[in-house]
């Protein structure tokens, strides 16, 4: 089956990033496809490569980046939600004249249409709420 995951919680304040990650790994291990990961609302913080947790805690953005690259997953971060909350790639940083960017490897900023598209194209869309 084709699954898409919508992730609305930030690391540290929500368990959604954990549950979604373990769900995604289990789905792939069971032979399913991940059509898309869609990060919305505070979930956009999953895509900050500046997260620097202590050694004995998981680095959630880094863990996503690895999974995304290993399985070539489409990982979309809602651009409007991300801009509001200070998650930018190089091109948005340039557009808004910000002197830095923080989007982690493997994630792409794109529009909310990608969430609806995921709902249309996937067999199941699962919301991981905050």
């Amino acid at each position, binding site marked *: *089956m084709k*699954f898409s995951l919508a992730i*609305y919680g930030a690391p540290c304040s929500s*368990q*959604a990033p954990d*549950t979604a990650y*373990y*769900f995604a*790994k*289990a*789905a792939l*291990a*069971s032979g*399913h496809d991940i059509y898309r990961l869609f990060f919305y609302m505070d979930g956009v913080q999953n895509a900050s490569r500046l997260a620097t947790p202590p050694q004995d805690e998981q680095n959630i953005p880094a863990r996503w980046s690895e999974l995304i690259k290993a399985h070539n997953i489409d990982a979309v971060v809602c651009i409007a939600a991300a801009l509001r909350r200070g998650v930018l790639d190089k091109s948005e940083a340039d557009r808004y004249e910000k002197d830095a960017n923080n989007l982690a490897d493997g994630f792409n900023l794109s529009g909310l249409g990608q969430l609806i598209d995921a709902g249309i194209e996937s067999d*199941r*869309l*699962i*919301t*991981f*709420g*905050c």
Partner: protein
Amino acid sequence: MILHTINKSPQNPALKTCLRVAAKDSAILLIEDGVYAALPGPDLEALLQHKVYALAPDIKARGLLEKLSPQITLVDYSGFVALVEQYDTVQSWY
């Protein structure tokens, strides 16, 4: 048929509202803080009118393994995936 997931403890209205509208043939999966609904409480009986699953890693994290009602089925993340496959839609209460 719908799979309802609940990730909030019973002090949040998510559980009560889910129980009010969930069709009899829908299943309920307790995840994250939702697993606290597996403890004795005013809503446990209504909950157990449905087929109820709980995510084992979250049950273990919270020290509830020995307090769990025997009518609740433990699943791991693969079991979560299998439930999503088995039911037509997922409704996430949070």
